């Protein structure tokens, strides 16, 4: 799938044929998925792909064909950043503007694109060929600056590289031809052909061990009863690797025991937390471990269907992953009567379309059901009522890999690795100011200092642990352990050296949350905007002492009153930096204005439009 689209046509005749072909194309697309309402994402993604947009007319046609309300189609199209009602260029350039990319010079690439294409971000070239956009982290922070050109990833993008790409695109070169030297490992596979690098810096004993035999873990699992499998997972003390750290065995037990004949296993490959990219490396190098873990999970909870929810940014891996699935079917590891043990189970892939919130498990299920990625109310939890109201276990990519290894090598082997409260290894995605950014498989319990030594980080001022929704810590935390009880992380570690302006990083994180809030509940939708505005004022030298108290109270309100995990963690960049780096804030503040004015209010700017219209200056506030 690609997220660009062909040129828009102009003459009346062309428009007529276009609308006929639109109609027949939509009919066909909908029929392929059996006019199934829950496949709405697939449908609109295909329409976007073929026509460059999901136009108003297309929405009507889809609604007719699917026998649903137009608003059901529209709510999906308007939600995801990869879908649009207005036509986009045949080629869409999406340049990452997360902190790491900006630190590594994304702005130079941005200027080159602007200059060479003659358009601003958010615009399309007049010939309708190329659209330029910003995007949050695309999971390439260790090779930043990075961009997506339709589905193709370009990495280490400097100013010259960007200019070169823009020129070639203008000349009509296909995005797939822009890929430079191919990356290592499976990145060079015929079905991937990307310039992405794995950058596996530390191969640990669990996920990146040598000589793992495909099917070993599964065969052992199938020789046991589902209950025994769950007991093994429980005894291994495995906890979720996606961020929340819920004990996997317990989750599976709940799902197994929940009422319902039909159950589902979901693998969460949305990997949207900025600075996280370890799942991408697993998907590239160890997809069998992951699929096998899903199969074992399916057996354990009593599911016959598994779904991999793959973020739209990783569409370049889709064909490769489909092929891995096909090979597993051929090897009797998927499909009917797996390993001759009478167990039926298969896996399909559902694509996301650029929305961070879809990593939240209930939003992910909404999205997979063909709706906006709105989180659902809890309870009921997915284990009771998940995908299509059936009991569903959602786990992270890495968690499934761990399961396969636990079944293969035994729970005791696994639980002996790591620390007392946190068993096993953890994959870290390290980026920012260090010599060796990349993926590190380390045992839990490792000290932050040791990790900094491993990745060659010198002159560390701060580390953002667990991405924006995690914590910003400084020197005081260097001897703390990486584990669920101390420095918890879904995998992202961003290193900031002493030369970085930390408040600007906090600002960037808050801009991210403001953009990614689904908007359902007020504390998150409005609160994050207010937090961002105040941080922005402080960065611009308009902050004053009372602002710190304001940030603290507002941040706590947003955390306690928000409906889902996004809003419950989004104030963390503010709150944790206030805790660890209060001095940085204080140094940026000015004393309060004596006359009680708000420093952010700019009367001159506020009057400018009216003065221009009236042709006179304000009598109260002269220039």
């Amino acid at each position, binding site marked *: 799938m690609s997220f660009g689209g062909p040129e828009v046509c102009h003459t009346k005749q062309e428009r007529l044929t276009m609308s006929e072909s639109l109609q027949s194309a939509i009919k066909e697309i909908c029929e392929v998925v059996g006019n199934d309402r829950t496949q709405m994402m697939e449908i609109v993604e295909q329409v976007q792909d073929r026509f460059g947009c999901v136009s108003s007319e297309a929405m009507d046609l889809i609604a007719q064909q699917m026998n649903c309300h137009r608003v059901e189609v529209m709510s999906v199209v308007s939600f995801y950043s990869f879908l649009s009602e207005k036509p986009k260029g045949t080629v869409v350039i999406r340049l990452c503007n997360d902190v790491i990319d900006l630190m590594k010079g994304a702005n130079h690439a941005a200027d080159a694109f602007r200059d060479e294409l003659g358009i601003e971000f958010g615009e399309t070239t007049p010939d309708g060929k190329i659209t330029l956009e910003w995007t949050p982290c695309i999971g390439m922070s260790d090779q930043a600056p990075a961009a997506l050109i339709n589905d193709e990833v370009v990495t280490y993008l400097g100013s010259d590289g960007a200019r070169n790409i823009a020129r070639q695109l203008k000349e009509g070169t296909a995005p797939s031809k822009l890929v430079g030297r191919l990356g290592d490992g499976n990145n060079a596979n015929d079905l991937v052909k990307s310039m992405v690098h794995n950058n596996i810096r530390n191969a640990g004993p669990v996920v990146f061990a040598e000589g793992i035999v495909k099917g070993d873990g599964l065969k052992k699992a199938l020789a046991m009863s589902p209950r025994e499998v769950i007991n093994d997972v429980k005894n291994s003390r495995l906890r979720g690797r996606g961020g929340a750290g819920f004990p996997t065995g317990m989750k599976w037990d709940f799902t197994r025991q929940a009422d319902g004949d039909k159950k589902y296993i979901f693998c969460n490959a949305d990997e949207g937390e900025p600075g996280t990219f370890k799942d991408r490396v697993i998907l590239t190098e160890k997809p069998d471990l992951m699929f096998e873990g899903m199969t074992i999970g399916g057996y354990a909870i009593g599911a016959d269907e598994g779904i991999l929810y793959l973020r739209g940014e990783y569409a370049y891996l889709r064909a490769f992953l489909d092929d891995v699935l096909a090979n597993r079917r051929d090897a009797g590891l998927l499909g009917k009567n797996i390993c001759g043990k009478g167990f039926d189970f298969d896996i399909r892939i559902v694509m996301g379309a650029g929305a961070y919130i879809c990593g939240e498990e209930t939003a992910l299920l909404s999205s997979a059901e063909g709706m906006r990625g709105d989180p659902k109310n809890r309870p009921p939890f997915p284990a009771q009522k998940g995908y299509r109201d059936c009991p569903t276990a959602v786990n992270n990519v890495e968690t499934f890999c761990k399961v396969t290894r636990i079944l293969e090598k035994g729970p005791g082997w696994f639980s002996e690795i790591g620390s007392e409260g946190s068993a096993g290894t953890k994959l870290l995605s390290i980026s920012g100011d260090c010599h060796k950014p990349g993926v590190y498989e380390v045992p839990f319990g490792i000290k932050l200092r040791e990790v900094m030594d491993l990745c060659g980080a010198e002159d560390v001022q701060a580390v953002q642990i667990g991405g924006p929704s995690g914590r910003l810590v400084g020197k005081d935390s260097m001897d703390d352990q990486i584990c669920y009880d101390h420095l918890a992380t879904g995998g992202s570690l961003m290193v900031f050296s002493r030369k970085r302006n930390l408040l600007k990083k906090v600002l960037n994180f808050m801009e991210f949350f403001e953009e990614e809030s689904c908007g359902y509940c007020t504390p998150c939708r409005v609160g994050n905007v207010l937090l961002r505005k105040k941080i922005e004022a402080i960065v611009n030298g308009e902050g004053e002492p009372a602002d710190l108290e304001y940030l603290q109270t507002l941040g706590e309100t947003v955390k306690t009153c928000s409906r889902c995990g996004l809003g419950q963690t989004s104030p963390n960049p503010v709150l944790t930096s206030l805790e660890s780096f209060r001095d940085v804030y204080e140094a940026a503040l000015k004393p*309060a204005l004596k*006359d*009680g*004015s*708000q420093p*952010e*209010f700019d*009367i001159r*700017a*506020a*009057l*400018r*439009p*009216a*003065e221009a*219209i*009236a*042709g*006179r200056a*304000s*009598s*109260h*506030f002269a220039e």
Partner: protein
Amino acid sequence: MAEKPKVATTSMAGCFGCHMSILDIDERILKLIDLVDFDKSPIDDIKEFTGRCAVGLLEGGCCNDENVKTLKDFREHCDILIAVGDCATMGGIPALRNNMSVKECLDEAYSTDNRKGPAVHNPDNIIPNDPELPLLLDKVYPVQHVVKIDYFLPGCPAPADTIWQSLVALLTDEPVELPYELIKYD
């Protein structure tokens, strides 16, 4: 008897509904006058501050330069400022124009070309521009975006009893009692 504390009030970008609500304390206004003197306020039509005030009650946000001037004046002269009503605290109805440009607003209101409303007869499309007229701000600002505000009384209008209870508590230095009925808005 010691001099009574003074209270000032103003209506900026509001509808005067909140001032009506102040008056809606009924006969308690007599008690209020025992407690305070009114300074600058539409209630007594004093146009300029005569001295320092204990409390300033603000209705409406800021939609033009004159509002900003008034508000700054209040901040300068009052020890405590209370934003009264939703217009003052959030911009309220006037802030509905905030996603339009000033030009669009003026055109909408005055241009006959738009032929939007039956009330507009303005064949020459004149947009009023007497030097005496305040200039609009780019958008309507809640009062706390312009100066520091000490207390907020939401509601459209803020209920009379809420205003009364808060004012008396403040003037008598007692804790304010706002039972549920006075701070629920549906």
